[in-house]
């Protein structure tokens, strides 16, 4: 009963930094140079919980810190600050095929991988049958893995983790390889086993993310973008030039042209394309909010160009200097309250 209430995974203000040590430490030492490791912050002040029966999807660009979050959740990495609480056993597929051995047969690999996942010996035979059935490799079960295709190896590794009797399941790009049939089977089985587990997975597939997840966390530079504003900023920043973003106006700074609750469209353009009188969207450092202002003046000087903006409804105090780094896009139209 207790574990129905308590989350199985809990991140409490978790931060993680990697120290990348110089490769030529001896040469640096002999030349009298300091061997200063490079500090890379990969997770910052993460706070979230995943309960039994919940599926959390992590979404973000490559290198955003998704896999690090899974490794912290699995206990493979230890946080520098904060705490990761795990209440239950864990199965993880963080790199497809890591742990499988090319010289061993399919069946031997199931034993090996299940051992790595911490499955007790007496649960092995039941797991073997389910994994063989699900991965569809029955005819290859006594064949060395080196003769398996990449897809077959991926199916086998995923199947073992799915059917392992653990409380927490962590999947990193688990469905990246596999045909349409396997993808369908995978989604079906995840829905089936989710009531007994807390599941965290990463994917670049928005459809899968929407279909499976109870919660989606957008990950950017090791942060979870929690608020609507942060997510909107991240989306606009990741868009290529020429794409549009639609959102809801949240303040009356551009009243009467734009009112709170209006739907607006932001067109991603280059900073050099904005003109006097345009309404632009921008952010200010340390302020996770999209600001809408009209351009009052533009000063062009290569990389040091900037514009002066103000809100239509504002007093003279509400004047901002916006550079290309802060600029998000141009507001191209508005419609009435939707």
């Amino acid at each position: 009963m207790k574990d129905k209430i308590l989350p199985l995974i809990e991140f409490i203000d978790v931060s993680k930094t990697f120290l990348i040590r110089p490769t030529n430490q001896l040469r640096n030492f002999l030349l009298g140079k300091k061997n200063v490791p490079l500090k890379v912050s990969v997770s910052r002040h993460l706070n979230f919980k995943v309960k039994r029966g919940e599926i959390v999807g992590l979404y973000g660009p490559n290198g955003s810190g998704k896999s690090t979050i899974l490794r912290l959740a699995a206990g493979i990495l230890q946080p520098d600050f904060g705490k990761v609480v795990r209440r239950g056993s864990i199965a993880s597929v963080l790199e497809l095929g890591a742990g499988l051995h090319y010289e061993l047969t399919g069946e031997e690999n199931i034993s090996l991988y299940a051992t790595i996942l911490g499955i007790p010996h007496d649960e092995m035979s039941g797991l073997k049958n389910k994994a063989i059935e699900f991965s569809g490799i029955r005819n290859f079960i006594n064949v060395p893995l080196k003769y398996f295709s990449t897809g077959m190896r991926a199916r086998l590794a995923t199947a073992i983790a799915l059917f392992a009797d653990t409380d927490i399941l962590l999947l990193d790009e688990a469905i990246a390889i596999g045909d349409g049939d396997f993808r369908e089977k995978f989604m079906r089985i995840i829905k089936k086993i989710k009531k007994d587990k807390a599941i965290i997975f990463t994917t670049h597939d928005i459809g899968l993310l929407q279909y499976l997840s109870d919660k989606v966390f957008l990950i950017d530079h090791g942060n979870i973008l929690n608020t609507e504003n942060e997510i909107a900023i991240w989306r606009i920043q990741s868009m290529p030039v020429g794409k549009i973003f639609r959102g809801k106006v949240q303040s009356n700074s551009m009243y009467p042209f734009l009112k709170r609750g209006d739907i607006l469209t932001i067109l991603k353009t280059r900073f050099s394309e904005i003109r006097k009188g345009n309404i632009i969207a921008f952010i200010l450092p340390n302020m996770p909010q999209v600001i809408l202002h009209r351009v009052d003046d533009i000063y062009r000087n290569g990389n040091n160009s900037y514009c002066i903006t103000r809100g239509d409804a504002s007093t003279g105090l509400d004047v901002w200097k916006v550079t290309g780094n802060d600029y998000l896009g141009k507001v191209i139209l508005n419609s009435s309250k939707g």
Partner: protein
Amino acid sequence: MKIYKTLVYFWFGAQTFAFRDLKTRYAGSLLGVIWIILYPLSMATITSVVFALAFQKTVENVPFFLYTLAGFSAWIFFVQTITSSARSLVQNRDIIINNNMSTELILGGVVLSRCVDLTITTFFLIVVSRIVGTFSFNPLLFAESVLALLFVTCIISMIVSAGNVYFRDVQALIDIFLNILFYATPIIYPLSAVPGRYLWIFNLNPLTPIFSGFRASILPVSFDFLSLNWILITSFILMIIFFAVYKYLEKKFAEFL
């Protein structure tokens, strides 16, 4: 109950890794497991031929060939376990950085697979000594010396494998260390052949009573039981202490690998 379950999991897990090691070690090899016997056999033959020319043909009426074969059987287990352990965690990097597993299973697999080698070479040694007529089995001494050998090997394996994760120099240093140890342990010569002023080195070496005991448990040669008892107790306690240190260091393995 939890300890029992953990031990059962460790036993079967180490078996799985040992099986993987054994199967992959001889994959593609023509002679396969015969190499387990061929290696100590060839070493003992070469050494006994060289020593027979220069020194003696028997030690306490035991043929020199059998004397060195007994030494090499235990020594090869010791050396190969330690050198394989030193590289084991680095070689299994993919598993360690992607799974929250007990890495001692990998070490357990290395030790267990080398125990299979030791069993085969010991059996071969017993068969040959029976044929020659010098077989004299002391089960208690055999069990004690093998256990002490196992404990000492496990201690060094834990140190070098964890050390190698943090500093890759360890795998190079261990080869030099084992070379020195080979000549500081009575493997290819009896203690009686060591000049008196150097005997203190052999007396300080914990492997001396272990190797002498192993040999004396199968062949009719003299042996001092008392020192082996001490080594057995001390190595068991040290193994538990080093295991705790290893588990502490294990938390950072994924970051350093």
